[in-house]
């Protein structure tokens, strides 16, 4: 009971704080007490704590990743040399990164920062950017091989895509001067209408899911099944 009910109660209380503070932040209520009433003060403190907790949650995956890769290396699993590369890169970057994070404002800080920045400039930035840039080639190949007008809906999709793509081409615009206005109209009216429908629908869905989590109907995030 303690292991299952108490976390659900904590979820409810933690969720109610930002909701209550939202209503208590009204200027009229704060007029008499410019430092904020009790709920707002508690909520502000809680928000500072959540920033720290969010950072802690970000690093959860590091432990799991170490476990999985060390197992792969010790068992000589498939692709184990790459696990060695992965862990080496992780440890080297983390060591220099932590040195940079904890270094005080003196000469060691300069060395720490320079070393860490070198790894970021030579490794992280080019690798991340190049990984994403592969998508440009895949999109071109997919557009050529798979984008076919098989029915009315696909035809509308193609027409809209061509309208956008031709509407920004300076040579086509020179031949068809009304095209940029038509492109803007398409973006501002039918596109925005559909996106708005998606936003409202998704927001209502998210809000109802949030309510389910707060009142304890949805429990899968705690690893509990329905009825537990």
């Amino acid at each position: 009971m303690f292991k299952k009910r108490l976390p659900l109660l904590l979820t409810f209380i933690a969720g109610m704080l930002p909701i209550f503070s939202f209503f208590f932040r009204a200027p009229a209520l704060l007029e008499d007490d410019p430092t904020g009433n009790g709920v707002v003060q508690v909520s502000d403190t809680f928000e500072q704590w959540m920033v720290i907790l969010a950072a802690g949650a970000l690093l959860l995956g590091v432990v799991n990743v170490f476990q999985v890769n060390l197992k792969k290396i010790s068992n000589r699993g498939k692709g184990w040399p790459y696990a060695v590369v992965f862990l080496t890169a992780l440890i080297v970057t983390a060591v220099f990164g932590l040195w940079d994070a904890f270094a005080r404002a003196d000469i060691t800080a300069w060395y720490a920062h320079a070393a860490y920045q070198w790894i970021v400039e030579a490794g992280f930035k080019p690798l991340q950017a190049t990984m994403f840039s592969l998508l440009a080639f895949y999109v071109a190949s997919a557009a050529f091989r798979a984008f076919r007008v098989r029915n009315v809906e696909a035809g509308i999709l193609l027409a809209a895509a061509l309208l956008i793509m031709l509407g920004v081409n300076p040579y086509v615009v020179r031949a068809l001067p009304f095209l940029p206005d038509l492109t803007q109209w398409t973006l501002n009216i039918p596109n925005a209408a559909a996106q708005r429908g998606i936003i409202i629908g998704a927001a209502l869905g998210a809000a109802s899911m949030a309510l389910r989590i707060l009142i304890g109907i949805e429990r899968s995030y705690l690893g509990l099944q329905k009825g537990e």
Partner: protein
Amino acid sequence: MTDLFQRLMNMDKRWLYLLVGLAAVIPILLPLNLPVNVAQSVQDLYDRVESLPAGSIVLVSFDYGPSTGPENDPMADTFIRHCLARDLKVICIALYPLGGVTEGLEELRRAVGPIDPPNGVLESSSFPGKFYGKDFVYLGYKDGGQATMRQMGENVHTVFPQEYFQAPVTQYELSNQVQGYGDVTFVMSLATGIIGEWWANLVNAQYGTPVAVGCTAVSAPKYFAYYKAGQMFALLPGLKGAAEYEYLVEQQHPRIAEATAADVYNAGKGWDVQSIVYSIITLFIIIGNVGFLVERRQQLRR
């Protein structure tokens, strides 16, 4: 004719990759300087910056990382230069976890020059008479996303007790002055993904602070809904938006035009390449569909 289409359809995709690669390289070696048509959402940002009185404070949030640098970097450079040329004050933060903090420092330095506050280099070499801490300041990165944005509405100093170079925020005039959203004229978010939306649906909705967003092309269609609803007063959609904004600013501010031309990469250069690759991909789509229709007609005849 049908055979030709068949061969095109069955072509090894690596030839397509090579064509795209060449289309990306050649315009960089041989610049084309293609014209741009300015959209209203971009004009709105330009007009707002031009209309603000000197001394107004703008909050710039670096909500993107190196992966979308080619789209967002030119927006950041041009915007900061534009603000400083108009004697506005710029306070920068970063909220994107994967590289926002390095992008913020890099672009700020690209716009103002090689500042180094811990070693006393505070004056901008690109804008003489503008100083770090007085006309522009960088507070660095903070985790927490929406919680951080909410907290900033109450007290920026609690979220950012130190600026990027680890001096207390109260040490500098500009960072000391800005305590909440009420102290800034508007927020400029340079975003990839969802953080730009948070500025609109959290900060604009709950605090009433005007928000402008420079987003990646991938997010642009969705952001137009927020622009239309007035939750953002301006929108720079992708590299096209960056090129249009750059064009507008360069017309009015020749000094910025010189600085942009001296950059290794700028939106104008990128837009040349973009136009050519875009045209090739459009051609691919049209050829692919013509081939498909020809094939279908043949099958129907049989």
